[in-house]
């Protein structure tokens, strides 16, 4: 029902605002941002802490509602969706990865990855094989029964990627995905995200405060300050990087065995 071919509009924000009251002061976390993101784009949201990049990401994720303006993802205006519809949107249209991984500690990796499938009411038998395949894709097929705490940060983030992708979302939202990882592990994760962006034509919107990381992987960088969009540049480096880094087996290259924690 939605157009998701390359080049079509994936995300559009129209003068979107997210204001909230903190004590006496009115905080303008997001203050009138209008952007268009095409399907298949890899976009980095840059800015200092408190610049509003995470708030904007939450609005696109459907976790939060704008105070004013519109957030339109694949033709759906999130501002007018019911809570139930927003949950469906989060389940099927977006996948999220976080800085702190956000795996459920009491569940094994397999169960963590299966969880969105439970919400999607997928049958038990099908669920397990889908989750296994997803974990295999991020190089964690040997760690199915482990709990998150038994794994390294890189492995946890890969598991969280496997979970984000299990329902085949059109949009991957990443909030500082390498923030808790060392640079080597961070690079592995970024390579994985890029491979999904390219092989699945998945739109990626990534929040980061690392300019270098954004320049290396994102095709476009949005610079935010005080809730406002101050810069919107496409990165030539990323395009060329894409071309040079393309290998015949991107999956294998990007999924080495994880180090011990």
């Amino acid at each position, binding site marked *: 029902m939605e157009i998701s071919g390359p080049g079509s509009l994936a995300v559009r924000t129209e003068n979107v605002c997210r204001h909230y009251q903190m004590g006496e002061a009115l905080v303008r976390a997001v203050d009138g941002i209008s952007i268009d993101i095409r399907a298949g784009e890899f976009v980095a949201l840059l800015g200092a802490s408190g610049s509003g990049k995470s708030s904007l990401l939450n609005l696109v*994720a459907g976790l939060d509602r704008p105070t004013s303006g519109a957030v339109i993802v694949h033709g759906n205006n999130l501002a007018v969706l019911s809570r139930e519809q927003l949950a469906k949107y*989060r389940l099927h249209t977006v996948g999220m990865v976080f800085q702190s991984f956000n795996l459920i500690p*009491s569940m094994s990796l397999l169960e963590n990855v299966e969880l969105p499938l439970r919400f999607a009411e997928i049958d038990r038998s099908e669920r397990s094989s889908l989750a296994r395949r997803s974990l295999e894709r991020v190089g964690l097929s040997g760690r199915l029964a482990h709990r998150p705490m038994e794994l390294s940060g890189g492995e946890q983030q890969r598991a969280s990627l496997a979970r984000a992708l299990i329902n085949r979302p059109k949009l991957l939202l990443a909030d500082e995905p390498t923030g808790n990882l060392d640079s080597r592990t961070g690079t592995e994760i970024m390579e994985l995200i890029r491979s999904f962006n390219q092989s699945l034509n998945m739109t990626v919107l990534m929040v980061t405060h690392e300019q270098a990381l954004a320049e290396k992987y994102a095709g476009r960088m949005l610079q935010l300050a005080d809730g406002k969009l101050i810069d919107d540049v496409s990165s030539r480096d990323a395009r060329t990087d894409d071309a040079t880094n393309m290998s015949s087996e991107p999956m294998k290259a990007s999924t080495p065995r994880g180090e011990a924690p």
Partner: protein
Amino acid sequence: MKFYDVTDLAFRNLRESIFRNSLTTIGISVGVASLVAMLSLGIGLQQLASRRLEKSGLFDTVMATSRRDLRNFREQREDGPPPAESPSLDESARKKIEQIPGVVEAYPDIRFVTDVRFDSKPHLTMVAGVPFSARNNNDAFEGVQGRFFSSEAAPEVILQKSFAEELLGMTPKPGTDNANIAELAKPLLGKELTIRYAERTSSPSSSPAGQSDGAAYSVVSHEQTLKIVGLTDLDPDSMRGTTRARVFLPLALVQNLHIMPSSLRDTSASDSLSYSSLSVRVANPNQVPAVEDAIKKMGFGAFSLVDATRSMRQFFAVLDGFLAIFGSLALAVASIGIVNTLVMAILERRREIGIMKAIGASDADVRGLFFAEAGAMGLVGGAFGVTLGWLIGRLINFGTNIYLERQHFPPAQIWSVPLWLVLGAIAFSIAVSLLSGLYPAARAARLDPVQALRYE
């Protein structure tokens, strides 16, 4: 989420903080146990009381009396014809009463005190006629040792247990149980005893004054030898009329003997076939009032104790209500425990709720999960509680019977756990738990995912 997934996740969440959830579940168990113990006690007492009353015939018997007999000694307050015009309670009246819908049978109450000889020793006791139908009406003669009368007018006799003891020269001990009725029966069954009675023979020719309802009969003393065929442990103090006697004869035999009534009032009867009273057995206790009315309309006195049983039932309904309230108090306390546990769980699992919402859980999923956790605690708590309550009930019963034995009373089942109570208690426990889960579940569902994810 599918039902299976909700329950699966709920149980695994309960296992995660097993200690706290166990304590909460134990709280529910204690609540359910107290409820089950209280109610089973109430039901047990009620069953004990109704069993005794049913055996007594209180529920299904109407006594029909001739109002003629009342004429000289009681002021009439009831409506109906004056006693003198009241029809006589004779065989045709008996047949008419038997025609009333719902009536199983109507038989005369024949009871007299007489001399019974056994082993050439005399014993003075009450003798009663028992209708042959009592064989099938088995609650009256269910514990009979030996057998029932072989035919409607067989020269046979069934003895009450205490009378059998008297015949054998044994002093009855209080608190003796049913077991020794078999021993009592052994030396007696098949033996013969003799009753002495006075026969009333109608002799119209010898009527001196020609009075229509005078004492136109003569009295002849007779003896009848009877074979002991059975022993019953029917309580002689029980309320069923005939069972006040201790020696039972077939009713037809007694009628054939034309025994002179022990009550002088009966001499007013115009002929020998008029009865002083009839026992009218009704198929269904609910029909008793209707039958009673019908008999009254025919001009007879009618009497039943159905009102007494109604107030007894009322008493037990109130008692059960009180016991249930006390039992429920513990369950109410337990339900507060559930609310507390689940609210704590929400605080603890705030981040987890945020994660679930971020990856696509709807409000309904989260609500369902907490709801299922409450329900699961209710189910497990209910099942344990019923078991615990059952054990408590057994213990109370056991203790009571030790006490009864010391007081030389026969043991009694004062406690009963019917299946509906088991299922009802578990269902009630689940219902109370779900009710307690309403607020926490709604609260968890309303949680803002952005806030929840920020929570460490």
